């Protein structure tokens, strides 16, 4: 009998031994004369179970995890005999953590072979493009606008309006850029999708190109993501060969091609104007806006710059219709958000759900609290530029406006959990230090302010005129917030001020606090 097994090749699974498990399964099987077919997939995003091995059965896919290479022999025994195994998880689709989600953008991730066009099509892929090709560009844009999709990079700007601006700007050449420079700590959704379902990104960008009249697209990602870049580059080559990129896409009159470009370790290049400078081969210096990229973008041409998750939502919207997407969510935050649970968390991973779920549900119910078993003291939402929230704010619903009202942001959807050993003054210092390391240097509040911020927080931690220096940090944060050119200097105050506001007791001469080593 031939067995079909699925083993992830997602970087997060590789980091905990997925390749070793795949090799061990193959070698045990060959010793036993078993014919097995190992399909390498992306990750389902249930990272505490990685490496998560799945086997195809008439009753659906059955999961086992977290597996090690030492488990290969017993796993194959259990699989062949349909018997019990300590790592057996039952039907993967029925795992409550997965079942509770609404997977629109991540519908295929972890299920299909990421580089198989047939697999992608068999799971609904390229239906969005097929429908887009029956519409006029204006109708495509209207569909995106009606869906309520807002930029998933953090700013939450309506995607349809951005596209319309580019479509209405006349030029001999236009560009579509995918911002896959996912530098925020605690985020990995872009990486997962590039590794687990790259065609959805290609399809989304192709639809954008048709809608706005662009013929060339760039995917700008990070050198820290070599697996994601390699998978995306391969997928582009496959799509091109199949006539889905290049001249006359899918037999239409539209032409659109894509290229992946790799950054070089500069966080600020995740800011859209710095990203364009970098793509042009320059230092990643932030540009002043206006002019907007939609009018004057890459190489001075009208350019759509969207986050990877925004593009990846497009095929569903075109396929199922704007209303199907807009039916999810709350208030002005429509659709679903792929939320990433990270840091000191028991059940960490990718949790895609409609907007509106509360922070407390995410951290306590879904995430199961900390893996150290200690109480959760703080969570940082939205990356290094996001605010730290205490338990008292755990009733905040996941929604752009609700977070803004509480001086926070959802950013790219990352949530990093800290237990009660965290020193919040140290975290505030790190926010300033990170800004100093990554500042592009163009504007003074960010370049100088961040360094002065580190020095002043150091004084507070030494017990040097604590009250006066706290006031100074608060004043400095105001200057950075209002005076910086971009979100790096402008949002660094969020983690600093939130730490000061909610965890003031940590600011002062360092106390011998709870230590993890106790």
């Amino acid at each position, binding site marked *: 009998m031939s067995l079909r097994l699925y083993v992830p090749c997602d*970087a*997060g699974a*590789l*980091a*905990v031994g997925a390749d070793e498990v795949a090799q061990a399964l193959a070698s045990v099987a060959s010793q036993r004369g078993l014919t097995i077919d190992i399909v390498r997939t992306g990750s389902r*995003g249930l*990272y*505490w179970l*990685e490496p998560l091995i799945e086997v195809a059965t008439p009753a659906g896919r059955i999961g086992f995890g977290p597996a090690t290479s030492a488990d290969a022999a017993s796993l194959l025994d259990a699989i062949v005999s349909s018997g019990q195994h300590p790592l057996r998880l039952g039907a993967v689709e029925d795992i409550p953590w997965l079942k509770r989600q609404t997977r629109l953008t991540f519908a295929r991730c972890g299920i299909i072979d990421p580089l198989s066009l047939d697999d992608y099509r068999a799971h609904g892929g390229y239906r969005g493009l097929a429908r887009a090709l029956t519409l006029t560009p204006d109708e495509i844009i209207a569909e995106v606008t009606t869906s309520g999709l807002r930029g998933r990079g953090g700013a939450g700007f309506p995607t349809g309006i951005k596209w319309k601006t580019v479509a209405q700007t006349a030029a001999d050449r236009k560009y579509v850029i995918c911002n896959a420079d*996912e530098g*925020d*700590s*605690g*985020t*990995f959704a*872009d990486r997962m999708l590039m590794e687990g379902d790259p065609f959805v990104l290609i399809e989304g960008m192709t639809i954008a190109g048709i809608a706005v009249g662009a013929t060339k697209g760039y995917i700008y990602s990070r*050198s*820290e993501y*070599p*697996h*994601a870049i390699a998978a995306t580059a391969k997928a582009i080559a496959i799509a091109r060969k199949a006539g889905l990129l290049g001249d006359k896409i899918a037999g239409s009159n539209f032409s659109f091609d894509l290229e992946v*470009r*790799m*950054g*070089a*370790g*500069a*966080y600020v290049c995740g800011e859209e104007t710095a990203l364009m400078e*970098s*793509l*042009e*081969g*320059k*230092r*990643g210096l932030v540009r002043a806006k206006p002019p907007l990229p939609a009018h004057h973008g890459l*190489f001075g041409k009208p350019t759509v710059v969207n986050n990877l998750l925004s593009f990846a939502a497009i095929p569903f919207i075109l396929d199922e219709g704007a209303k199907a997407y807009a039916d999810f969510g709350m208030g002005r935050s429509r659709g679903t958000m792929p939320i*990433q*649970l*990270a*840091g*000191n*968390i028991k059940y*960490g991973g*990718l949790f895609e759900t409609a907007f509106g779920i509360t922070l407390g549900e995410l951290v306590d119910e879904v995430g199961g609290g900390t*893996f150290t078993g200690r109480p959760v003291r703080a969570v*940082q939402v939205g990356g*290094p530029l996001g605010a730290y929230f205490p338990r008292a704010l755990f009733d905040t619903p996941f929604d752009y406006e609700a977070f803004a009202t509480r001086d926070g942001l959802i950013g790219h959807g*990352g949530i*990093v*959990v*800290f*237990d009660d050993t*965290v020193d919040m003054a140290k*975290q505030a210092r*790190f926010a300033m230090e*990170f800004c100093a*390391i*990554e500042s*592009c240097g163009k504007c003074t509040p960010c370049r100088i302010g961040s360094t002065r911020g580190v020095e002043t927080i150091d004084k507070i931690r030494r017990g040097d005129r604590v009250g006066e220096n706290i006031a100074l940090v608060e004043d400095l944060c105001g200057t950075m917030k209002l005076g910086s050119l971009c979100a790096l200097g402008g949002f660094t105050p969020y983690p600093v001020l939130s730490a000061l506001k909610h965890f003031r007791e940590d600011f002062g001469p360092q106390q011998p606090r709870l230590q*993890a080593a106790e």
Partner: protein
Amino acid sequence: MTSVYEPWEAARGADIIAEHSQMEGATLPILHALQEAFGYVPEEALPMIASALNLSRAEVYGVFTFYHDFRSRPAGRHVLKLCRAEACQAAGGDALAARAEAKLGIALGNTTADQRVTLEPIYCLGLCATAPSAMLDGRLVGRLDENRLDALVSEAQR
């Protein structure tokens, strides 16, 4: 994987530059390609890039020095990168970084005197749900603890 780099040769450098010079915004792809071949970007290459792309030497130097990735001299035989961003901090990364520094006798950002190991901070490998994480010569390692870190350090020292 242990990366084996070619020794710098101007003719080979010129070939690499020529291979990429027709791309839009070619500077970064060229710098990456040179570093991939030689392990660093030799100073001699910068004016060559400038002339191929019709830029000033200052412009190319500015780009080269802006990005954290590009090296002006070869790294140690192995490069161990430890993630130092918030998700890894939350999961005990600070103590592990200090442990690696103590074991190797160098601070982050330095190379051991025997040129075997370069220890560097990295700000997020995107493995935040299996934190703390590290990368040894391109190989990813998650769920680091003291034992796994010690094994990585020993491997790098070999």
